[in-house]
């Protein structure tokens, strides 16, 4: 039974119709008058020093306006990571460097009147390289004799551990309890290593940016970005340009998933406009997105657990090695989350140690990607639990229910492991994981299928389960703000920095405002993500928007409500305590009269002691209440060829109060299919020289509608009292379960443990050979 009028309703997304009719504008839809075309030139070598660039032939081409490279661009160290300032990522990159650190690193940018000229002229760039020995194996990165990719001129702005002489981009170590005691108490130890691999976000819109001077001479950046405010700051920093002169606008965005939580194209386009006083367009190709933008960080996760014969884990040791690629964007924070979002789930473990290291390699650069380290960690943890319970003949679902964190409990990991700073302790307020597990068990028909190895000819079936938690915003670090004003028909403008990247945050935040003000959704006019017109918000990451930006919006709306009540009191001669609000009207229960929102606003704007009913609010949060998720898969394995088919996939999520259930389901469904695709068919293939070989959709396969299994998604509502109307987050968590659930299902079917994905027929077949299963 829904006690709200708008919250909890599957209201139509405010921009859905304009998107479905093609009238919405994405970055490349904005017409540029007299614009310049930008074409990047990339390094063909994985590791090389540019000895010289001769751009004379390029500049001689009619229609070429400029060539940017290290000789003519200010060398200002920064990070491209779209994070709060000072960023928890090393300042290890330049707009143009003279050291090339991966195949796909940026040598130069040709600026010309049109595409044809730019592409033709780019081929004439004369670059002399001193080719260096590259480093590709992250396990060897810290060896003495390995090539070093960065030097001591690079460093974190926050003073985090950084040892470039060892290619160490980040290191995190936490522990509590007594590991020796844990080892002694264990009856046996399970020691396994799991490898989460490369993946690409594959947002259908490639990274795009357009820059121009407006009619007042301000630099306007229209960018396909998740982080408009970080864009503004980093462009100011990297281009050495006054921040006050920069305006960043985020229009409609064609997907991000973390790939656009990065500021690596905007400074380039900005420089072109700054130098030539003309608009610039920089839209990268699909191949450039695959190779030269950002990837998921591969992480090798080793888990060692001491186990008693009754199932209790006496100690847990996680040793994670993250392959950061050529630069360290998000290297510390993704690494931290591999532990911080995973380890607290099993909080009864008294003795814990987490050592994480991020290392540089001469490979494409890792960045933020939905799940953000938790995905990689859960691939390990969920299989580890499967191994443990099978060894002891325990029921996996019952085991998880017995040992996972519960309402009222905490974990030492929360405080120990933050994101570049200390973590923040928290107590779990809401958790319906048990119900989520029950739904999965029921819907997949667990008990009829588990361990049964149902066989038909050459094909065997199995079922697997995985659980996870994520977070909702970064406590004490992220900030969101909102501004609202009232109009004379009882409608409200809602200006928010929060960034809708297709997630529907414009809608969800409007629903929160509408609920707080007791108005229908149509009375809220959202406007978001313009650094001139909206207040600050960190942007769309860390699953922060509903929880954190939602709290700011609610806080702001309640301030507005206060003002409305005060005006109404004056209008009706009422006592404030006699007033209540319902359906856009203020009622005086004593005098039995009412006045409408419209009348109230007109009074305020025009009649007496005129003022604009308006308010602002900022919010930070003191905790990051996790959503919880259970996911189950049924697979069919071809015992002759190793081909795996995912037959059915169940997801059940506790995201607190779902502000918009349809949008919440949509987030889970999208994340789940992304996770299944990542597990089954996606991989990066490199040549011996570190060149990415499969840089297009023809050779990097993602699921189509015809590939998805039968899917069921359940939104299980709990109530998170710290969240706006009880809400937590939902956008990332769905991607964590598929890979381990499918791996566990494969084991159930054929007794083969998949420590690495994608689970292609060949990989499964080889695993069958190696693990000697017929």
């Amino acid at each position, binding site marked *: 039974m829904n006690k709200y009028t708008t919250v909890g309703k*599957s209201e*139509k*997304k405010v*921009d*859905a*119709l*304009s*998107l*479905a*009719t*093609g*009238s*919405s*504008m*994405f970055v*490349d*839809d904005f017409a540029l008058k007299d614009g310049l075309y930008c074409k990047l030139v990339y390094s063909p070598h994985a590791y090389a020093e540019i000895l010289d660039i001769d751009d004379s032939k390029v500049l001689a081409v009619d229609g070429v306006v400029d060539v940017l490279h290290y000789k003519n661009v200010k060398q200002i160290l920064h990070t491209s990571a779209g994070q709060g300032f000072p960023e928890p990522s090393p300042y290890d990159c330049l707009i143009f460097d003279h050291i090339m650190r991966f195949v796909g690193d940026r040598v130069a940018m040709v600026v010309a009147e049109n595409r044809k000229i730019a592409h033709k002229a780019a081929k004439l760039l004369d670059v002399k390289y001193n080719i260096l020995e590259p480093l590709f194996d992250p396990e060897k990165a810290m060896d003495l004799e390995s090539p070093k990719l960065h030097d001591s001129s690079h460093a974190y702005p926050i003073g985090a551990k950084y040892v470039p002489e060892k290619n160490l981009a980040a290191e995190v170590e936490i522990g509590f309890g007594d590991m020796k005691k844990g080892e002694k108490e264990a009856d046996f130890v399970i020691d396994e290593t799991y490898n989460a691999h490369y993946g690409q*976000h*594959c*947002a*259908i*819109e*490639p990274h795009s940016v357009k820059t121009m001077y407006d009619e007042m001479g301000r630099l306007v950046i229209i960018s396909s970005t998740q982080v408009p405010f970080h864009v503004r700051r980093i462009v100011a920093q990297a281009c050495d340009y006054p921040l006050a002169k920069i305006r960043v606008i985020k229009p*409609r*965005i*064609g*997907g991000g*998933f973390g790939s656009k939580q990065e500021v690596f194209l905007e400074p380039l386009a900005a420089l072109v406009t700054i130098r030539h006083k003309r608009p610039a367009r920089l*839209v990268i*190709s*699909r191949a450039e997105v695959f190779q030269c933008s950002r990837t998921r960080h591969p992480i090798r996760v080793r888990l060692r657990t001491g186990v008693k014969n009754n199932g209790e884990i006496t100690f847990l040791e996680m040793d994670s090695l993250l392959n950061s690629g050529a630069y360290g964007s998000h290297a510390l924070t993704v690494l931290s989350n591999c532990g911080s979002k995973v380890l607290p789930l099993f909080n009864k473990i008294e003795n814990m140690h987490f050592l994480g290291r991020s290392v540089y390699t001469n490979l494409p650069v890792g960045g933020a990607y939905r799940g953000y380290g938790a995905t990689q960690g859960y691939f390990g943890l969920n299989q580890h639990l499967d191994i443990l319970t099978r060894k002891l003949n325990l029921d996996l679902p019952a085991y998880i229910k017995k040992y996972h964190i519960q309402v009222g409990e905490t974990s030492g990991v929360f405080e120990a492991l933050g994101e570049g700073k200390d973590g923040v302790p928290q107590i779990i307020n809401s958790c319906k994981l048990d119900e989520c597990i029950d739904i999965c068990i029921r819907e997949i028909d667990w008990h009829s299928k588990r361990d049964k190895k149902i066989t038909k000819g050459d094909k065997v079936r199995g079922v697997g389960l995985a659980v996870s938690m994520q977070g909702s915003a970064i406590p004490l670090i992220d900030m969101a703000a909102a501004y609202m004003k009232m109009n004379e028909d009882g409608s409200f403008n809602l200006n928010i920095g929060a960034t809708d*990247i*297709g*997630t*529907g945050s414009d809608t969800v935040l409007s629903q929160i405002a509408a609920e707080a003000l007791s108005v229908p959704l149509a009375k809220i006019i959202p406007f978001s993500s313009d650094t001139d017109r909206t207040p600050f918000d960190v942007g769309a990451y860390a699953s922060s928007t509903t929880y954190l930006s939602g709290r700011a919006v609610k806080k702001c709306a309640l301030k507005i409500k206060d003002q409305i009540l005060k005006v109404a009191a004056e209008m009706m001669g009422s006592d404030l305590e006699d007033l209540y609000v319902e359906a856009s009207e203020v009622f005086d229960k004593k005098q039995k009269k009412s006045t409408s929102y419209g009348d109230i606003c007109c009074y305020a704007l025009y009649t007496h002691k005129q003022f604009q009913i308006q308010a602002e609010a900022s919010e930070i949060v003191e905790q990051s209440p996790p959503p919880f998720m259970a996911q189950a898969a049924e697979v069919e394995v071809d015992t002759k060829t190793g081909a795996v088919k995912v037959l059915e996939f169940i997801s059940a999520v506790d995201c607190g109060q779902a502000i918009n259930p*349809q*949008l919440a*389901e*949509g987030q889970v*469904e*999208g*994340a*789940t*299919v*992304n996770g299944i695709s990542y597990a089954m068919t996606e991989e990066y293939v490199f040549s011996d020289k570190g060149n990415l070989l499969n840089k*297009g*959709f*023809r050779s990097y396969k*993602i*699921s*189509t*509608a*015809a590939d*998805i299994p039968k*899917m069921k*998604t359940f939104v299980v509502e709990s109530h998170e009292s710290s969240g706006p109307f009880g809400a937590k987050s939902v956008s990332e968590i769905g991607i964590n379960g598929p890979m381990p659930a499918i791996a566990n299902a494969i084991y159930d079917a054929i007794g083969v443990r998949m420590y690495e994905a994608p689970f292609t027929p060949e990989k499964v077949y080889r695993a069958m050979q190696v693990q000697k299963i017929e």
Partner: protein
Amino acid sequence: MEVILNVNGKPIKVEFTPEEHLLYTLRQNGFTEVKSGCKEGECGACLVLLNGKPVNSCLMFTASVTEEDKLLTVKGIGDLHEPHVIQEAFVDSGAVQCGFCTPGIVLASYALLQENSTPTEEEVKKAMDGNLCRCTGYVKIIEAVQLAAKRLQKK
């Protein structure tokens, strides 16, 4: 080169080069609802209807299109003020997230329903095997097409 294209029922004179692709020509001439996602015929963001049939405009030479051909973009089946039943069904089903793939998928659905007014779930999935979506996981898109089919039957 020059040709008069028939787009969304209206003639439009366009200039283009011999190697130019239809996607580029359309976008240069204001049809920005046709999106560019991969330029190799895999993602379907550039999908338009050529004489009623879905094609990838990124792989078509503009020179292949002659005056008798009829092109349809998503704006040709319905707009913000008079949306098509299919577009409304997408909205109602929650099938639109970032919306970048939506014009192409709406057109693919339109072509399907023109030919087969009662498609099975398998037929719906097959009709959009050339449209990639990373946001929705396709679940609500399939529901939207089935809802549209039902609503069109009622009409």
